[in-house]
């Protein structure tokens, strides 16, 4: 083999490190290093924190094919799985890191409230939440941190209501979630935060067993009583849904707002239109353009897989860098432009294959309500600091901003 990118045999010199840094002046664009790899070919080797050299898949077509391939596993316990960071012992991850049939068995149990129709029924309630929070922002002092005052509360209130988690505990679960998904948190620190969330959800499941209410956790207790689900599995699913349900959408709200403030012509489209089609399309385009889950989907091959002239060997890791696939010029012309009128529903910001985001109908609806309301109600919304001073989540498994001072 003469291919210098194939690092078999432990020869890792020249293999770029992953994750890669973004360019300092382009906080919305994927790392330039990923763009270069994509130009060279659909697959390349990268080096992770532990010295391993899995594949990174950079082009859209190959990513979709591999994410939908049953020979590709999401099981984090398999040798060769390209972990984001040292894995603490006794991790708590639920079906997001499992394969079928276990994945399917568990996912089906929590799917009901996330169907398109059920989510649509929640729209008026979400609109009220958004309106009330904006009322409070307008009545309060300025500048204000939009993350704290708006971006985090919206999805947190919604997922709490849906799961049956008391919103009063939001400081506790928001802080611990942040630690769990920080790439550079020490393994013990992350393990401790995960364990605290797990204990909290386990306790809640216990309370719902004693006193069921009309929420998702209570419905899971029915499964426990029927012997279809263990209490530990229920608590782990609760943790997954709680974290995934608020961190992601919150980042889309804050980072999306910042991106729009930097593209005033695009922001004007949302401010001046009440066409639900335009709003829905804007949500898809912002999902594509920002692709906040910037650590890539992590997978490992169960068998040898031939793709685009390469062979991924059984046991080799793969990282599907969705951020750069969503900027693949073959699929999205002018990929680095934010163009809210672009028809981009085929993006992979929610992943692809059987793990494709369970909460996507909810995320879409929440973002549609937010983007169609916030800029109309606060038309003079503006950044209250320099872009250079905005703290971006370069160290997060999910990208976004830690704070967004705004005024109006």
């Amino acid at each position, binding site marked *: 083999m003469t291919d210098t990118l194939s690092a078999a045999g432990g020869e890792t010199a020249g293999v770029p490190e992953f994750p890669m840094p973004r360019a300092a002046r382009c906080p919305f664009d994927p790392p330039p290093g990923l763009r270069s790899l994509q130009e060279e070919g659909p697959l390349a080797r990268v080096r992770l924190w532990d010295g391993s050299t899995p594949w990174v898949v950079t082009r859209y077509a190959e990513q979709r094919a591999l994410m939908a391939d049953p020979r590709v596993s999401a099981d984090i316990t398999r040798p060769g799985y390209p972990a984001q960071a040292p894995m603490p012992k006794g991790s708590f991850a639920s079906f997001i890191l499992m394969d079928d049939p276990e994945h399917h068995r568990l996912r089906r149990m929590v799917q009901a409230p*996330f*169907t398109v129709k059920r989510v649509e029924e929640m729209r008026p309630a979400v609109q009220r939440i958004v309106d009330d929070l904006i009322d409070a922002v307008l009545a309060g002092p300025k500048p204000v941190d939009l993350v704290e005052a708006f971006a985090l509360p919206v999805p947190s209130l919604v997922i709490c209501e849906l799961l049956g988690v008391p919103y009063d505990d939001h400081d506790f679960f928001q802080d611990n979630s942040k630690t769990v998904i920080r790439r550079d948190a020490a393994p013990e620190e992350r393990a401790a935060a995960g364990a605290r969330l797990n204990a909290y959800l386990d306790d809640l499941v216990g309370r719902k067993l004693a006193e069921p209410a009309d929420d998702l956790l209570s419905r899971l207790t029915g499964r426990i009583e029927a012997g279809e689900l263990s209490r530990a599995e229920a608590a782990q699913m609760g943790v997954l849904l709680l974290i995934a349900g608020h961190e992601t959408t919150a980042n889309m709200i804050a980072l999306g707002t910042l991106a729009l403030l930097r593209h005033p012509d695009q922001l004007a489209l949302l401010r001046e239109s009440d066409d639900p089609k335009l709003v829905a399309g804007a949500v898809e385009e912002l999902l594509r353009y920002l692709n906040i889950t910037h650590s890539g989907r992590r997978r490992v091959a169960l068998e040898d897989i031939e793709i685009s002239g390469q062979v991924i060997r059984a046991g080799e890791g793969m990282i599907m860098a969705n951020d750069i696939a969503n900027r693949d010029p073959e699929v999205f012309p002018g990929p680095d432009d934010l163009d809210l009128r672009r028809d981009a*529903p*085929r993006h992979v910001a929610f992943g692809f294959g059987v*793990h*494709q*985001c369970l909460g996507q109908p909810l995320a*879409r609806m929440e973002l549609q309500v937010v983007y169609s309301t916030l800029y109309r109600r606060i038309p003079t919304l503006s950044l209250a600091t320099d872009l250079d001073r905005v703290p971006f989540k370069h160290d997060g498994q999910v990208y976004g901003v830690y704070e967004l001072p705004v005024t109006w």
Partner: protein
Amino acid sequence: MNVIVDAGKCCGAGQCVLLAPDVFDQNEDDGIVVLLDATPPEALRAAVREAAEVCPAAAITVEERP
């Protein structure tokens, strides 16, 4: 056009319902796809093809009959 869904493959992400609500629905209990119309009229066919294309689980097959 003849539409076939494989409920065993479906992961309930609901993309098909968003695109073609007159052709696809989701089961209330577990979000799994329900086919409402296996032979959709001309006006819906583009959306159905799009649904088959974006379905993450390859659960939708479209047979184009002459």
